[in-house]
């Protein structure tokens, strides 16, 4: 760990499909290199949620489309990780209001942290200004606007906070898909759409 300030950890889990957005991590890591002074490990780490090794990660990513049903070990690690000061970014790939992922994941979180733990965060939350400034809260994605899934624009994110800080950030916006492209293609965008990823990670690291 000494030679890095940050490494990207993707969590696998038993019930659903964690293997999504494969190009996203390297694209986000590239943005960290481009915009920040963080020393990053360029290799994505894939760790099981049930593996205690995940507790050491500064940041974890959790995503999928399908039903989420945690095993006892997964549930235990998740609770320890969040309560112990970790940072988990959860992205609903389907962002479908009737979607399995959203319903089942939210139910799991309710079970672990109580029904009210996961709540909307205001659009002026610190996470929207931890690096770049997002005046209107979470930036909209191209993917959620194109008639896929529920065709709704979710103009908020939800979070579980511990001690006044977000420890679990939950999105129905499918940022994972939005950022899922070869990092070399960022140069074709008029505005880099991974900037919010930089905010999330900077916030996770304490900014």
């Amino acid at each position, binding site marked *: 760990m000494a030679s890095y300030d940050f490494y990207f950890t993707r969590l696998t889990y038993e019930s659903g499909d964690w293997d999504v957005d494969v190009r996203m991590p390297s694209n986000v890591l590239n943005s960290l290199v481009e915009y920040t002074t963080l020393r990053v490990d360029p290799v994505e780490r894939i760790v099981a949620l049930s593996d205690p090794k995940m507790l050491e990660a500064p940041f974890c990513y959790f995503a999928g489309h399908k039903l989420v049903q945690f095993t006892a070990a997964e549930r235990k690690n998740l609770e320890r990780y969040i309560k112990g000061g970790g940072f988990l970014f959860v992205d609903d790939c389907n962002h479908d209001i009737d979607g399995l992922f959203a319903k089942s994941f939210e139910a799991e979180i309710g079970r672990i942290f109580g029904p009210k733990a996961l709540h909307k965060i205001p659009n002026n939350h610190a996470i929207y200004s931890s690096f770049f400034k997002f005046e209107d809260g979470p930036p909209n994605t191209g*993917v959620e606007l*194109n008639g*896929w899934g529920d065709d709704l624009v979710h103009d908020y994110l939800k979070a579980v906070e511990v001690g006044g800080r977000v420890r679990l950030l939950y999105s129905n916006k499918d940022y994972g898909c939005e950022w899922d492209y070869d990092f070399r*293609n960022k140069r*074709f965008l008029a505005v880099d759409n991974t900037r919010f990823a930089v905010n999330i990670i900077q916030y996770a690291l304490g900014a």
Partner: protein
Amino acid sequence: MKMLNQEEAKRVCDKLMSLSKADECRVQISGSRNGNIRYARNAVSTAGLAENTQLTVSVAFGKRQGTASINEFDDKSLEKVIRRAEDVARLAPENPEFQPAVKKQDYKSSVTFSEATAAIDPEYRAEVAALSINSARKQGLVAAGFFSDTTGFETVANSNGVFGYQTLSNLGFTVTTRTEDGRGSGWVTRSANDARKFDAREASEIAIEKALKSVDAKALEPGRYTVILEPAATSEIIGRMFGAFDARQADEGRSFLSKKGGGNRLGEKLFDEQVNIWADPWNPDVPVLPWDGQAMLARERADVVKGGKIASLDYTRYWAEKQGQRATGRHGNMIMAGGGKSTEELIASTKKGILVTRTWYIRMVDPQSLLLTGLTRDGTFYIENGKIKHPVKNFRFNESPVSMLNNIDELGKPVVIGGDEVRYQMLIPPMKVRDFNFTSLSDAV
């Protein structure tokens, strides 16, 4: 009116030059016999034959130019057309950008004529239609198609001694086969200048196979995918890009090839280094006339993109003169280098991706970045572990050919493809491209 042979065409041109009282005179004669057959709902809807020979004369007094044309060739008509052009020229305002007629050109002839194509008759056309209708019907499909063939000649001449004559022929075929319930649709396009290179049965079978395989398409989430683009999926995208290779637009700051601060991007690397594209009027697969009918300049073999770098731009004669460049004839074809692999072999080496067999209704969204939008159509499939898994619903894309040609993984074996809304005859490889940007789904089949 029968087709003019070279001597007859020359005689008409010489006669016109001698009649002209203007400072200069340019002549173009085009003759063609176009036959076609159209069918839909498994029955022929129209069939026709059109013959026409048209003569166009352009004369100039100083910088005033006038144009007229006619399709009769007796002495009286030739006199009439010259006088009409002269009348229009006298009425026209002076054009400061007027370019005098070109000096004598060296046109090295290309093989644009094929006896086999010229021999196509109504029975041949009816057979093409019957063959494709019957093969479709056998599979319970409904065919709609169009076959057309053209045989003709082109002549250009001017009062500086320019003269060119060449015969040409070509054919084009498209057919769409759909399932009765409208849930599957397949399409194929073929073009050739030599009918011996055309096989209606082979072509129809491809459309049929695509129609049968495309039933029960599943919706896949829009996003950036690795795609295998068949030549019919990229020809209009790439063709539109070459339509924007004009040097003047670039120099004037209103093209994707304009340079920040002024000038153009000639010599800059804009694409992946696997991209090599050139024009060659003498290419045996996509031969075109060795001159550009508008400027009457000789065409040349020219690199357009070499190793991903912009190798040349299109100069009009006026702009070339102004910029101290040499103008050459506008290109008639575009040839893109590829590899040896077939589309099937490109699929076999793909872990996850989408096969796009055709794109449709492509329009420029932003000329600054060459962003184009359009849709997939008539056969779009999901690929997993080297195999076609299942058909997918059609996508709308928003993508620039510039980013597309930067994201090339692999190129296959080039095939001939005629332009629909673009003017080039093309030889284009199937391409495996990363991160192709699909932005929404379409319910259309």
